[in-house]
């Protein structure tokens, strides 16, 4: 009987799992004391964008986002606990969609900005939606959404630019090739 090849190779699964874990580690270890909503997005989007750029397969960002969401919910680092899975996964899904729309040109800082900003702002929207579902009054959530969406886009975008510069450097150094065919692990 022929063994059906898995969608992600073992190497890719290991890489994406590490990037997913890195999101959680960065979120926990680094606190930016500027009290601005979305500022931690700089670190959140970075491993997801780099992971999607290196694996270059639809679903790579989603997989890494799901891993980070599972870790965040199990460790309970945020008040939403198990519902954190949704916002981390949504961020990964968004980065996947943006990557596909731009043909995985994630070494381009502008594309990196768009991917990071979109991922971070979708995370914010999903976070608000979960709060609404849990019964928090809409007015409390919607007040301040203007500044919050702008800062999420800016900080997510900065994270995306940094990720694009890292990916570009990896391409230029020859460590990763843009036309690499992933091995079978």
């Amino acid at each position, binding site marked *: 009987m022929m063994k059906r090849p898995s969608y992600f190779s073992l190497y890719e699964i290991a890489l994406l799992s590490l990037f997913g874990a890195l999101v959680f580690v960065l979120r926990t270890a680094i606190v930016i004391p500027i*009290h601005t909503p979305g500022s931690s997005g700089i670190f959140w989007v970075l491993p997801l964008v780099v992971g999607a750029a290196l694996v270059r397969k639809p679903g790579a960002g989603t997989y890494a986002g799901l891993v980070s969401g599972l870790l965040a919910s199990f460790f309970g680092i945020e*008040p939403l606990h198990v519902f954190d899975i949704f916002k981390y996964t949504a961020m990964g899904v968004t980065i996947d969609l943006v990557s596909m729309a731009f043909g995985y040109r994630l070494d381009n800082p502008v594309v990196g900005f768009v991917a990071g900003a979109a991922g971070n*702002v979708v995370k914010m929207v999903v976070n608000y939606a979960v709060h609404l579902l849990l019964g928090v*009054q809409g007015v*409390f959530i919607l007040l301040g*959404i203007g500044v919050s969406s702008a800062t999420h886009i800016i900080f997510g975008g900065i994270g995306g630019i940094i990720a694009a510069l890292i990916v570009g450097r990896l391409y230029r150094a020859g460590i990763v090739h843009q036309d690499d065919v992933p091995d079978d692990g």
Partner: protein
Amino acid sequence: MVLQRRVLLAVAVLAAVIAVSFLIDTTVSQAYARESGSADSILQTTTVDRYDLRYGPQSWRPYATPLAIGPGDLPSGNWYLAFVDPGVVPVGGNPALARTGSVKVDYQFTDLAGTASFSVYGLHAGDGRAWTNRQSGYGTSGYYVSGTAAPGDSPRWTTPLEAGDRYVVEVAGSPRPVDEDVARDTRTLWFERINSGLDGIHITTDLAARKGQVTETTALNGSFYVTYTGGNRVGDLFLMVAVDRPQPESFRLTLESTFVESNR
């Protein structure tokens, strides 16, 4: 060229998201957000009588979990509560970037029966989340005044608050409960979660001790400060005055509040 068009489209979508968010924010702010506190050094005077004590009898005060009113950790006693808007807010943050300062409150009781407890509640500007002074553990602050007047009749107009994480409270001085046709002046206090919102706002008698302390006194005239050690903007400030006895008809509390700028 295709990439450029897609980038322009994506940037336009992100800009539209920001524009729509600001539109929603402005609409909701105009409909719901009321901020009455100012940081001007103008003296604001408020008078409280027995009819302003609209909540109780109850042993606790609002927070994500009930907090004690009297000195100590555990809720006890039968207290009657009033929420007073002093009209002034403390300002925290970086003194190089903002005119930071505290609120000085001068109080004067007339015919106080039993013990009066002062607590403070601050509302985040914009979103309604609330802070209050810590009731137990490190950083506890509070102010208690004891009086010797004879208690009055039990008030018939008070009702206990319902425990939860959101409280809609009437502000003292707004139309009295008898004026059913007139809209009450209410504010919503919302506590996001337990252990959050307890370390921003404090009561102190010494501005050098900004985190405050617990003061118990028999002086019917005196003063204390409300300090804020967080970095957010306080939109509204409320003093919760609670008394553990029904007050006589002659009971009065006069509060004079003013903004005191921090020394730079």
